[in-house]
């Protein structure tokens, strides 16, 4: 897999490169501005890009803008966005056009190497990855009593993992259950939440996100 790194913090860029290389993937380039990012995508045609939300010169949301622009030029181009803090608006913007091949992780997540590599490969393959903390915040924020409260604790757990972008198999593995019980849980969840059942992972992520975000 050929990866493009877009990160202005030298230490972190180095760490990412090391981690990606150790996994056997290739880092085609490491750039540090939004402009260089867009040029590098054209120049190297990587399989996936890892992009920091904050880039020079203003260090606000250049990465998000650039990611959206890159997806505009190449729809479906896999991008994994790294953010310092949970920023719900950015997540909403990034997933507004559909969640295929899009990921949004917290920078702290990079030290959990397995999770990070997992997310990277998932996104590169067209899947979705959302940081557990973003999902947790969505699940747990104050809300008037609603359908979410009808879910059992196990169902909430499954819902969270679904929102993070895991497939049924992956969820089953993480929770130590069979795939069938996961399917049953998901069916129950969708019924309780009045959502249409959809097996395609990223569409179901979107549905859940829309539900949680609304």
């Amino acid at each position, binding site marked *: 897999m050929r990866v493009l790194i877009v990160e202005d*913090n030298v*230490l*972190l860029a*180095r*760490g*990412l490169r*090391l*981690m990606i290389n*150790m996994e056997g993937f290739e880092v085609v380039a490491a750039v540090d501005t939004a402009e260089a990012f867009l040029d590098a995508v054209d120049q190297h045609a990587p399989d996936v890009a890892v992009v920091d939300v904050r880039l020079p010169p203003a260090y606000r949301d250049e990465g998000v803008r650039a990611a959206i622009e890159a997806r505009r030029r190449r729809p479906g181009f896999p991008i994994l966005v790294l953010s310092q803090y949970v920023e719900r608006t950015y997540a909403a913007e990034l997933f507004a056009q559909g969640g295929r091949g899009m990921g949004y992780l917290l*920078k*702290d997540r*990079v*030290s*959990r*190497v*397995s999770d990070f*590599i997992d997310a990277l490969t998932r996104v590169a393959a067209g899947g979705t990855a959302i940081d557990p903390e973003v999902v947790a915040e969505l699940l747990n924020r104050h809300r008037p009593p609603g359908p979410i409260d009808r879910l059992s604790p196990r169902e909430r757990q499954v819902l969270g993992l679904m929102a993070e972008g895991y497939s049924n198999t992956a969820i089953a593995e993480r929770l130590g259950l069979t795939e069938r019980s996961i399917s049953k849980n998901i069916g129950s969840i969708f019924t309780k939440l009045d959502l249409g059942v959809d097996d395609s992972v990223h569409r179901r992520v979107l549905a859940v996100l829309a539900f949680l975000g609304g």
Partner: protein
Amino acid sequence: MRDTLRQAVRGSRYLLAGGLTATACAIALALIAMLFGSYVFVGVFVVPLVVTADRWVADWERRRAGALLGRPIERTYVALRETGDPPGPRGWPRRWLLMFGRAMSDPTSYRDALWITVHTIVGTTFAAVTLVLWVEVISAASLPIQWALAATGVRPPNWRPWVWEAVLAPFAVAALLWATPLFARGEARVAAVLLGPPARQRLATRVKQLAQSRAEALDAHSAELRRIERNLHDGAQAEIVSVALLLGVAQRQLEQHGLTDPATVGGLVRQARESAEGALVDLRELVRGMYPPILADRGLEGAIEALAARGPVPVSLRVRPVGRLPAALEAAAYFIVTEALTNVSRHSAAGRAVVDLKREHRSLRIQVFDDGVGGADEARGTGLRGIRGRVAAFDGRVELSSPPGGPTTLLVEIPCES
């Protein structure tokens, strides 16, 4: 002893000069009374002249009193003449009328009048007493000569006055030494109160000053917080993320490949350790920039001693114990001295420097002197501006004297309650 004498002489001079102004005031008052007594309408004519003369005298008094008290006394006059007034010889009557109106409507004119009345009495009295005391002291000093003359038969002895003088002499001397500075300050304070701006205005000015310095303090605080945040974020935090990342990769290596490749894992762990050490260095630097540990350990005096010993220029210290100060103040004082000494070693080419630190009245006084080339320019380099910023946040003041050719003296005074 010399200091006391100097104070007494200074006080006496002040009181005697006060006597002069008081006499002038007395004459003026008498003249005005006479004029108004005889021809009232002349008052309109005379008032602008009188007020102008009063303002001269009052200004002179303000300068004198301000010099003695060590703080300037503000003048708050309404201008008698303005640019809009009718010009030329033709407009003269109208101008005069306008001046009369302004003089009469200015509240300061009446406060000045009050002061003139008070000062006529007070000034002449104090001056007279001072004169008498000096005469007494001088004539007492001449007693031995008179005795000698009497002994040799040149002049007849005059016992009664001599005994009196000899007895009174010590009291006179004591009075001179003790009372004159006191009375001089008293007279100056009266001038400050009556000739300065009224209490409400002084308060208003003070409130404005405090609001300003509070805003500056907040700015300084905010800038400091941002600096710390940036420092932590880009420095220690980034390095600690790096540590976590490297160890995470090492862990994954071990999980996936076991111990088949110790060199790789070892390399990762080594890099992680180096990052951790880098983070420690950054954190230590940051802490030193906020509140240096040496201040906590040795106090301000000790920390400055350490500073003085470190630089290339020999620094002599005149540091008197200042007791315990608020941490923010100690840190600021330490950084000010650090900055000043850095400037000395970098720009002044000085042979020696002196750091003077003491607690005076109700303020902390820092003075850094060097015998270098001077010409310190605040516009170039942010060191001096940084000092001013820090000091402004504490409502203190900075005075820099650095003529080209040197020497340079930096004086900083920061108020601090005991």
